[in-house]
């Protein structure tokens, strides 16, 4: 896309080779009237330029809270307690002042939301959503921002961008709105993009278009991307590495191919088995994981998955397994780690 070359001019001050995003032992505790809820419980990873980390997990596993804590939208305060460290483009997010955070948001890190029907202000034209961010972070005047907004709409594949600028969100289709949301997140070419269930609210044909668009833009802009989804299919083939979350913890992380071929954690195995497949004979019972995720106000002492795990033994409900590097037949498999006492597919720590 020719217009994207103009957008590649500015690159944030990340040194080549150094990771864009570093998350160290991040914990988010949400205070609710019924007690404290440990939504994110000790998560660490790092992400380099152009890399995509997929985060999968079922509803309530803490993936969205993780995304928002990384952004700094959840901070250490009266409502939530945050410990650990998040570094975006060299800046310690949770040490920034409110003002510094606002300079980080929309400039160094952008966010794509789940539902494009609600992520755009219904009383603002599509163009305004883009120009206000450009004027805020780049000090552009009205006409510069408008020209640039048109460029952005073109970049995200919206036909007749000039006309669309003056349309209200309700005049655009769902897919088109999500493209506007993406353009909004990318307006200032952030080093990091957090996409929280970017396709969940869209129909299947549009889902693929949006995922392809995200992948293309990531390549063109060299962003790091955190792709959050409950859908393994969304993450497969789009993410370099995949982290599986369960009850606030990452229970397995590996490069995408390894994870899908030889998962070591029983939960990952069960998740993969629960995907319906077209070549399955008809009337075969679909695999499902029995039970429900634990209550995060009072989580179980040992492995959080133990009550639902078919391989669980006595030690599982007593000792919490930690995320350690994996090895198969004594040979370390780099980049693969899991948290389980009784792994499957020949995995060992």
């Amino acid at each position, binding site marked *: 896309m020719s217009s994207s070359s103009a957008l590649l001019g500015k690159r944030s001050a990340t040194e080549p080779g150094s990771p864009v995003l570093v998350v160290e032992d991040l914990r988010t505790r949400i205070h609710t009237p019924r007690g404290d809820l440990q939504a994110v419980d000790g998560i660490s990873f790092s992400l380099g330029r152009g890399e995509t980390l997929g985060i999968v997990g079922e509803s309530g596993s803490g993936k969205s809270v993780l995304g928002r804590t990384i952004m700094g*939208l959840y901070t250490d305060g009266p409502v939530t307690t945050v410990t650990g460290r998040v570094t975006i483009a060299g800046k310690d997010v949770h040490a920034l002042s409110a003002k510094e955070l*606002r300079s980080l*948001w929309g400039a160094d890190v952008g966010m794509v939301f789940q539902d494009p029907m*609600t992520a755009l*202000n219904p*009383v603002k034209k599509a163009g305004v959503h883009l120009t*206000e961010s450009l004027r*805020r972070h780049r000090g552009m005047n009205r006409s510069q921002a408008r020209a640039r907004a048109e460029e952005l709409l073109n970049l995200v594949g919206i036909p007749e961008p000039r006309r669309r600028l003056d349309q209200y969100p*309700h005049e655009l289709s769902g897919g088109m709105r999500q493209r506007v949301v993406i353009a909004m997140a990318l*307006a200032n070419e952030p080093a990091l993009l957090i996409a929280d269930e970017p396709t969940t609210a869209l129909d299947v044909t549009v889902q693929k278009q949006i995922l392809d668009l995200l992948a293309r833009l990531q390549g063109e802009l060299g962003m790091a991307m955190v792709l959050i989804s409950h859908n393994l299919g969304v993450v497969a083939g789009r993410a370099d590495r995949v982290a599986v979350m369960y009850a606030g913890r990452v229970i397995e992380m590996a490069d995408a191919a390894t994870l899908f071929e030889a998962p070591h954690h029983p939960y990952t195995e069960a998740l993969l088995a629960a995907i319906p497949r077209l070549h399955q004979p008809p009337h075969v019972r679909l695999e499902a994981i029995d039970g429900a995720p634990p209550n995060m106000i009072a989580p179980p002492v040992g492995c959080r998955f133990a009550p639902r795990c078919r391989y669980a033994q006595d030690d599982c409900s007593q000792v919490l397994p930690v995320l350690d590097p994996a090895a198969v037949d004594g040979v370390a498999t780099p980049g693969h780690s899991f948290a389980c006492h009784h792994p499957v597919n020949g995995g060992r720590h």
Partner: protein
Amino acid sequence: MGRTLMKRAGELAAVLLIVSFGTFLLVSLLPNDPAVSILGPGRAPAEYAALREELGLDDSTLSRYLDWLGSALTGDLGQSVVPPQVDVLDRIAAALPVSVQLAVMGMGMALLISIPLAMWSAYHAGGRVDRVISGGTFGVLSVPSFLAGLLVIMVFANALDWFPRAQWVRITESLAGNLYHAFLPALTIALAEAALFTRILRNDLITTLQEDFILAAKAKGMSARHVLFSDALRPSSFSMVTLIGLSLGRLIGSTVIVEYLFALPGLGSLVIGAADTGDFVMVQGAVLVIATIYVLTNLLIDLSYGVLDPRIRRAHV
């Protein structure tokens, strides 16, 4: 658009017919006999009867109404039946600006007070300031307006001596003097309205602030002030705008208590005074004007929804 306006004009005419006929019926039930008001008490019954005959009071209500309606349609609201027999239209033309100014100024002041308070409250919902504002607005709402007026007079006119009371300077004489003298009565009106607006707007803002697009605006790095004024206010203002319409229309004719407290020559006092003497022509004319303003104000409010929310522009027209 043209069709909507036509339909609205039809509705307006229907409402005015019903209101004026209803007023006519009510006024004819008044115990005050205009004949007694005009001649004074203690005359012979025959004299009163003759005057009533002359005034046409013995005709049927319907034929009197139709008479009145006929001349009202030509723009003639008649003359006061009680001496001095002034032109009703002149009296209304003198009183109306006072009432309109009070209502508009009061409303403007109420908005100036309530919008920042509601925003602060909603943005820090559950916090100390929110609780203080909540309690304060509740307190103001529970104070009857004559008491609020007296308090305003005690504080600003008597104790602080910042503003005068009981004087009215016409806007044509001196704009500054007019605003200066209108300040306290307008403030009295504004207090109760502001308390109401603050509560309504706060609740709607809290709902709006939980929307995804607010989070999206924050995630773009927009400031709290930008988020509140540019993103949250408009989508939250519908209930308040509806209330503004109802309040404005209501205030035009019913600021009687404030008019009495501050000795202002407004429409409210005009109607009450006329009803007192049985001056049905005056009551009739004033009510017609008040009803017209009420309906027109709310027509404007209805049209403003389309300005506030682009989604209902097409659905409506």
